C-alpha cells in the first residue's frame, strides 16, 4: 500500500510502507527532522494556543510539550478512508455538502472523499504536505482546494496579529465564496478532522465559545463538525447524571448546543505510534499505555436549530457559561446554594418554577434542566436585577 507522497518525513514513509496501521501517527519527534522548516515544529504540535506567536501574558506559555504524547494523526489506510468518506458524505444521491477537511496530511482520506463526489477544502497546517495535496486536485476542476491554515487556530481568541497558519474566518470564507446563512436555515458546510491529541479540551472550549456567541465559523450558520475524539474526552462529552463522575461543564454546553451522534469507532490498537526514538513497540510509560487502550470516536456535532429560540441568546450566553462553571465548581453542593450567589432572586421560587426539589444536587441536573433554569431566571419579571454576574468576572 504505497502512496505517492512528494516529500514525506522518513518516519511517515516507514509507517506507510509497513502498512501495519490504519492511521499514521506522527510523533513530535518527526517534527524535529532537519528538513522540515522550523516554523512547522510549532505547527505540528498543533493547535494548543499556548504556542501562539503572540505573547499572552495572562496565561504564561507553558514549556512546549515535547513528550511522546504529542501526536499528529493521519488516516493512511485506504479502506478506512473509504468507510469514512461514505459516512461523512452520506447517501450518494444527495447533493454533496462542501467539506472542510482539517489537516488531511498525506491526503488518503481526501482522495476517498473526492471519489465519493464531495467538494473538499483541505486546510493543512503542515507545509510539507501541501504540494502533494495540490497535485491531488489537479484534474478535478476545482473540486479540491488546498489552503495553508490550521482549523483550530481560526480566529484565535487571544487577539493580536493573525499570522498563518492561524487565519481569520472572515477572510477564509470570503476566499471560498461561502455566504452567511441564518441560524435556522440548513447546514452550510461540514468540517471533518481530528481533535489534536493534546488539546481536545481546549479546542472544545474554543468551539463552544464560538458557537454560543455566533462568531468565527458559526457566524456563517450551523456548521456541522465531524471529528475524531479520544475516548476519555468522548465519555466526558456525552456524560449526564447517570455517570456523575464524568459529568462536567463541557458536557452540558455541548449537549445543549448540538445533537451529538457517534458515526464510527476506531480502536487505537490498530495504530502505530511513533515518537522521536522511532516506532514505539513495547512501552512501559503509563500514559502511553493508557492511551493505547483507548478508542477514537468519530462524532458528528450538529448545532441545534432551536438553541437560541428562547431567552438564551448570543447576548447573554456568557452568563450561562458562568452559571455552569459556578455550579460545577462545587458539584456535590445543591443547586440552591449556587443560585444564592448567582442571582439576587429568590432561589427557592425559581427551583419551584422549573419543578425541581430544593435539595437537588448539581450533578443530578440534566443539561436541559440547566438551560431551563437559566431561561427561567432570565425571563423572571419581578426584579430589575436578575444576575450578580459582571463582565469583569470573566477573562476572555
Amino acid at each position, binding site marked *: 500500500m504505497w502512496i505517492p507522497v512528494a516529500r514525506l518525513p522518513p518516519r511517515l514513509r516507514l509507517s506507510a510502507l509497513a502498512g501495519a496501521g490504519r492511521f499514521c501517527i506522527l510523533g513530535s519527534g518527526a517534527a524535529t527532522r532537519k528538513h522540515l522548516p522550523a516554523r512547522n515544529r510549532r505547527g505540528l504540535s498543533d493547535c494548543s494556543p499556548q504556542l501562539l506567536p503572540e505573547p499572552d501574558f495572562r496565561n504564561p506559555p507553558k514549556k512546549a510539550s515535547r513528550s511522546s504524547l504529542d501526536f499528529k494523526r493521519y488516516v493512511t489506510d485506504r479502506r478506512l478512508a473509504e468507510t469514512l468518506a461514505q459516512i461523512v458524505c452520506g447517501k450518494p444521491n444527495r447533493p454533496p455538502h462542501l467539506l472542510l477537511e482539517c489537516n488531511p496530511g498525506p491526503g488518503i482520506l481526501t482522495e476517498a472523499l473526492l471519489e465519493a463526489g464531495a467538494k473538499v477544502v483541505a486546510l493543512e497546517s503542515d507545509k510539507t504536505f501541501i504540494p502533494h495535496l495540490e497535485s491531488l486536485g489537479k484534474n478535478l476542476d476545482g473540486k479540491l482546494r488546498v489552503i495553508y491554515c490550521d482549523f483550530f487556530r481560526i480566529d484565535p481568541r487571544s487577539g493580536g496579529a493573525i499570522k498563518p497558519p492561524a487565519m481569520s474566518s472572515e477572510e477564509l470564507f470570503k476566499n471560498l465564496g461561502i455566504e452567511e446563512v441564518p441560524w435556522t436555515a440548513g447546514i452550510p458546510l461540514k468540517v471533518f478532522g481530528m481533535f489534536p491529541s493534546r488539546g481536545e479540551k481546549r479546542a472544545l472550549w474554543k468551539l463552544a465559545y464560538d458557537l454560543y456567541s455566533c462568531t468565527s465559523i458559526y457566524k456563517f450558520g450551523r456548521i456541522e463538525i465531524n471529528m475524531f475524539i479520544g475516548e476519555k474526552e468522548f465519555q466526558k462529552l456525552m456524560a449526564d447524571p447517570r455517570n456523575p463522575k464524568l459529568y462536567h461543564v463541557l458536557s452540558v454546553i455541548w449537549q445543549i448546543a448540538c445533537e451529538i451522534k457517534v458515526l464510527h469507532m476506531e480502536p487505537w490498537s490498530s495504530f502505530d505510534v511513533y515518537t522521536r526514538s522511532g516506532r514505539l513497540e513495547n512501552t512501559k510509560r503509563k500514559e502511553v499505555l493508557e492511551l493505547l487502550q483507548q478508542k477514537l470516536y468519530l462524532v458528528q456535532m450538529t448545532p441545534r436549530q432551536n438553541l437560541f429560540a428562547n431567552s438564551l441568546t448570543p447576548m447573554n450566553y456568557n452568563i450561562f457559561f458562568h452559571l455552569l462553571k459556578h455550579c460545577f465548581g462545587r458539584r456535590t453542593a445543591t443547586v440552591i446554594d449556587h443560585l444564592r450567589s448567582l442571582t439576587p432572586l429568590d432561589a427557592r421560587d425559581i427551583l419551584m418554577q422549573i419543578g425541581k426539589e430544593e435539595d437537588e444536587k448539581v450533578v443530578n441536573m440534566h443539561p436541559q434542566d440547566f438551560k431551563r433554569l437559566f431561561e427561567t431566571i432570565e425571563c423572571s419579571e419581578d426584579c*430589575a436585577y436578575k444576575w450578580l454576574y459582571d463582565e469583569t*468576572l470573566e477573562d476572555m
Partner: protein
Amino acid sequence: MSVLWWGRGAAGFRRALPPCGPALVSPAGTLGGVCGPRRSSSANPQEQDQDRRKDWGHVELLEVLQARVRQLQAESVSEVVVDRVDVARLVPCSGWAQRLEKDQWVQRMRIQQLKANLQMQVQSGEFKVLPKHLQVKPQLLSKQLAMFLAPESSWEEQLPRVLQEAPRKLSLDVGRAPSTQAQLSGQQQKLLAFFKCCLLTDHLPLAHHLLVTHHSQRKKQKLLTLDMYNTVMLGWARQGAFKELVYVLLMVKDAGLTPDLLSYAAALQCLGRQDQDAGTIERCLEQMSQEGLELQALFTAVPLSEEEQATVLKAVHKVKPTFSLPRQPPPAVNTSKLLRDVYAKDGPVSYPKLHLPLKTLQSLFEKQLCVELASKVCVVSVEKPALPSKEVMHARKTLQTLRDHWERALCRVLQETKNRLEGEVHKGRFSLYPFLCLLDEREVARMLLEVLQGLPAPGESFTTLARELSARTFSRHVVQRQQLSGQVQALETYYRKYLHLLASDTKVPNPCLPRQYWEVLGAPEALREQPWPLPVQMELGKQLAEMLVQATQMPSSLNNPHGSSRLVPVLYHVYSFRNVQQIGVLKPHPAYVQLRETAAEPTLTFEAVDVPMLCPPLPWTSPHTGGFLLSPTKLMRTVEGATQHQELLETCPPTALHGALDALTQLGNCAWRVNGRVLDLVLQLFQAKGCPELGVPAPPSEAPQPAEAHLPHSAAPARKAELRRELARCQKVAREMHSLRAEALYRFSLAQHLRDCVFWLPHNMDFRGRTYPCPPHFNHLGSDVARALLEFAQGRPLGPHGLDWLKIHLVNLTGFKKREPLRKRLAFAEEVMDEILDSADQPMT
C-alpha cells in the same frame, strides 16, 4: 445600657452551662459557677488567705453580695415550687396570686441586679474570680513535678524550688525552640498571637485555660513554645498572681523547657509586686546566675514597660541594694564609607529647617493628632454636587435608614459571634475571641459599614477585603492602645521638644539630624506592637467579612419600602473564573450600588494613613517607628503577607540602617502646599466634561453608548452577537474611564481639602531602596496634572541657571524638540516665550 449588660451576662451564663452538667441548670448553679473558686473545697486555705490580703477592700463587699444571692436563691427555689402548684391547681384566689406574682417579680429583678453587679466586677477584672469551668491547675506529666501542685509550704517558697528543678526531657528542648516567628507553624503563630491578645484584652484566665488544656494533651503540648508560657506568665506577673505564675512555671519545667530571661523577668516582677522577703528573691537570682543569665540583660534585652522595669528593679534592690540600671550605650554612628561625610562629627549638619514658627507647628501637631485618633478623615467630594431633588433626598434617607439598621444588626451579630467564639476557647480550642474584643462593637460595626460604603460595584476579591479589614482593625487597635496606655501624652511631650529643632524661631544647642535629635531627647522606644501573623490576619478578616455578609440585608424592592417585600442580602459571595483558578469575590447587590449612585453622597471617607500629614512626620528611628504619629507605618513596603524582610530588619544592627532612616526622614520633612490656581483650573474642567487631552478624566456621562440598546427578541443571533461585542467594548471603555475618574476624584478632593494647609508626605521605601510617599492618593508621584497641583510650601530662589532649566523642562514636556540638543531647546523656548506667557495668563483659550 444596663439592659444590654444584663443580656451579655445572661448569654455568658447560658454558655457556661453545658460543661457544668445537668445538675447546675437552676439559677443557683449558674451563680455558683461565677463565684466557684471561692467556695470550692479544693481551694487552698492559704490561697484564700493570700487573696484576702490582696483585695481586702473588695472581699467584704463580695461576701455580703454572695450571701444575699444565696439567700435569694433559696427563696427562688421555693418560689418555683409554689409556681408549679399554682399552675396545677389554677387557684381562683386572685389577690393572693397577684401578690405572689409581684413578689416573684421583685425577687427576679433583685437576682438580676445582683448577677449583673457580680458580672460587672468580674468583667472589669476587679476580682480574680474565675468561672468554674476554666482550668487553673495544670495536669503535669511528670509525677515528681506534680508534687508541687499540693504544696506543704507557701507558694512563695515553691518558686525557687521549681526553678531549681531540672527540666524534664532534656534531650528535647534543643530542637524545640524555634527562634523566629517564621519558623513557627501556622497553628503556633495563631496560639502565640492569641495569648498576647488575651493579655491586652484582660482575658488572662482564658489564656491560662487554653495553655493548661493544651499542656495536658501530649499532642497539643508539642505546639506550645517557651514564648507562649512566658506570655501567660508575664500576664500573671502584671497582676501579681503568684499561684498561677508558679503553675505556669511548673508547666514550663514539665514540658522540658528551660526558663529564659523573660521567665525570670516575669517571676521577679511578680515578686516585686507581692513585696516578698529577700530570701525568695535571692534564691531566684542565684538560680538565674547558675543558668548563665546576666542580671544586666534583664533590663536591656527584655522589652518591658517603664512601670514593669521599676517593679523588677524594686525586687532586685531588696537583695542587692547597690545594683543600678546599666547605662545606655552612647548612640552608635554609622561607619559606612559612603556616608562618612554625612555623619562626620565636626562639620555643620544640614537638615531642613522649616519656615514655620514653633507655635504654628504645635497647633498643626494637635490637628494631626486629632485626625489620627479618629483614624478616618471625611473629605468633601469635588464631584459636581447633585441637585437635591426629591429622588436624591429619598435615596439618601433610605440609605441612612438602612445603615442605622445595619449598624444594629452588626452589633448583634458581633455579639453572637463573640459568644460562640468564647465557647470555643472554653472547649480548649483556639478562636478569635480576644481579637474581636480589642475594639468596641460599635466601632467595629462602623468600620465594617465604611468598607461596605467603599465597596466597588464589580465587587472585591474576598482575600483582599479580608486583609484590608484586619489591617484596619489592627491600626485602630494600635491607636487605641497608645491612647489608653498614656503613650500619646509621652509622644506629645517629646514631639513638642523635637519641634524646637525644626521650627524657624527656635534654636537648639547641638543641632544634629532629626533622628539623632529624637534619640538624644531619649524618647522611650515605644512598645510598638508587632503585626499579627498572617494566619490570624486572614482568619480575622474573613470572620469580619462574613459577619458583614450575614448582618446586612435590604428589602428586595427598594422603591416601595412600605410594600411587603422580602429581605435579600446586600453582599454575595460570587466566583470569578480565571483560567483554572476560581477567585472568590464579594459583590454588592446591584440595587444597592444603584441606590448609592442615586444618593450621590457628597463626602468621601479616607483612612487617616491615606491622607498627607498636617505636621512634620516622626523621624524614622527604627524599622517600625516613624512616619505617622500613631498609626503603624512600615519602613519597607512589600507584597502583602511577606514577613521575612521584617525579621531581617529586626536583626539588622541599628547603625546599618541609619542611612536609609535619615534619607527617609529628610524626604518626609519637606513641606508642601497646593497650587491653588492650577487646582481651580483643573476643578473647572473636572466638573464640566473633563478633558482627557489635559489629563483630566471625563465623567461617566461621556462614555460611549452602543448604537441600540435592545434588540427585539426575533433578531438574528448573528446580529445579537454583534451587539454584544459592541456592548462589551463600550463597557470596557466605561470601566477604564471610571477608574481614571475615581483616581482623579480622590486626588482632587484631597487637594481641595488641603488647599489652605501646609502638609507633609511621610516616605518609606521598597526593597530596592526606591522611596515612595506613604499617602497613596495625593502625592508628587503621578501624572503631570498630579505634580502640577503641588508646590513647595517654602519657596527658594532659583540658582544661576535655574530659569534656563525650567525653560528646557517646559520644552521637554511639549515633546517638540525630542532630538535636539539642550541649547536648541532653550533657544526654542525663548522663541515662543510670548506664547508661553500668554498661555500662562489665559490657560483656557
